[in-house]
């Protein structure tokens, strides 16, 4: 979760995030009303947007 906080604070870039870890966090924090779920969701949105931008260059 520290990694996600750093991502949200723009201290690390989305491409530096370990994607296996993201899947594990999403599996672990599955309660939509919890603060952890919202933090994971925000981080996922940032990372997914970044991967979409990257993918766009390759299609």
């Amino acid at each position, binding site marked *: 979760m520290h990694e996600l*906080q750093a991502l949200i604070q723009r201290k690390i870039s989305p491409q530096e995030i370990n*994607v296996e870890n*993201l899947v594990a966090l999403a*599996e672990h924090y599955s309660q939509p009303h919890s603060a952890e779920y919202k933090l*994971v969701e925000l981080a996922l949105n940032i990372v997914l947007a970044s*991967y*979409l931008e990257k*993918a766009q260059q*390759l*299609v």
Partner: protein
Amino acid sequence: MNTLEKSRLIKELHDLTGALERRSLSLYETAKAKSRIKSIFVECDQPLFKKQILAYKAQVQPERSAEEFARDTIYARSFRGVFQQVEALEQALYAQPDSGWAILYQPASGWQIWLIPAPARTALLSDWGNLEQVYRWMLQQQHQYRSLHTDLELLNQQNYAATQAFQNTVTARSSVAIEPEAAAQQLKPTKAAPVQPEQQADPVPEAESSARHLLLNQLSCPISELPLDHLPAEKLCRVFLPARPEVMQYADVLVHDAEQAALLKRPGYVAEQINAQGRFIKYLVLFGALDAMQATRFAHAFSQQHEHEIAAIREIDSAVLESQLFALDSLFQCYQHAEQMIWHKEDYYPFIPLQLIHTQKFIQFEETAPTLATPLILLKERQKIRLIHGQQRLQLARTEQAYPYILLDRQQGVSWQIIQKVLNHLPAPVDPLRLVQAIQQLTAS
């Protein structure tokens, strides 16, 4: 899409883009990977990833994406098309020389908008850029020149023209009347002099005109009856402002029972109209309603007919409303200061025009992901209204002219130091309502 699904899409994109970058795939596998990426873009086609989806569509289907983009704006009816050749664009744009806009696309440069700023004038050209950049340029020009009419305005004008044509054919049998300007001026209520009883207003001979007009702020405004599906027995009219067409961009003006003498004795009403997603559409300005109940009924019936909703209705002195109606800023101020809120929906926040906000954020911090209903948090200091929270909310949609907001006031003890102090103790990302609550708790203590 829930978080687990998103995380799996990220994993998949990570693997696919990695393989494509390493060029480790066969031709067949490359085609398959690209095909899967395209289907992921379809899965992610939601407002949250609007920027990425638009960029993707612009790359794979540039002309079609520009067409879709233009058709999605409030100026779609004035749009003349997407072109790759200047000559073809000019031909289409200048075929209707009064107004209009078009998009030029060139693969090496991107997009460029051509906009006719005034009737019979040569088009203004934006710099080359992506669709959002050039459209933002067009909105800036529109703010200055007001050359385009929104689709809704054009539709209303067509309806009005059709009504006029119909009325002209039955002039001899019509029972319409005109209120002469001088008589109307004498009947304007003032605080010093009590108004005359309604029945003492002299009726004006019907033969004086075949058109019905209403005098607003010394402007003679044609009116046209507006049947309401839900209230067929009520007499409600739309007011047209041909001398000030810009008003129709931010307000629908209506009048009940167009007796000039009567309507200015009655309070005016202003409602905020929103769409089903909660996005601000326009104000609704209503003169002549008999009471707040009737105003509420009219506002809801009118907005439902246009597939909109009402967010709130306030009562405003009609003489004040009449004078403040002709600029969005002054109508907003007039609405904001009206104390008489007669109805509002649940979870209501008032709306503020974008042009009144200084949108540069002074204190940078991470914000929670917004929805269209998320209010901006603003600070009023001296004559300026500055953004505290809402950078993401402002970016959520391209064409909003007003945003829901909560206004904090420096005069009530809220300072940048207090905001910074509160932010230091709130976990990131910061929720706007928690921020306001924490600020209010600190200033109250």
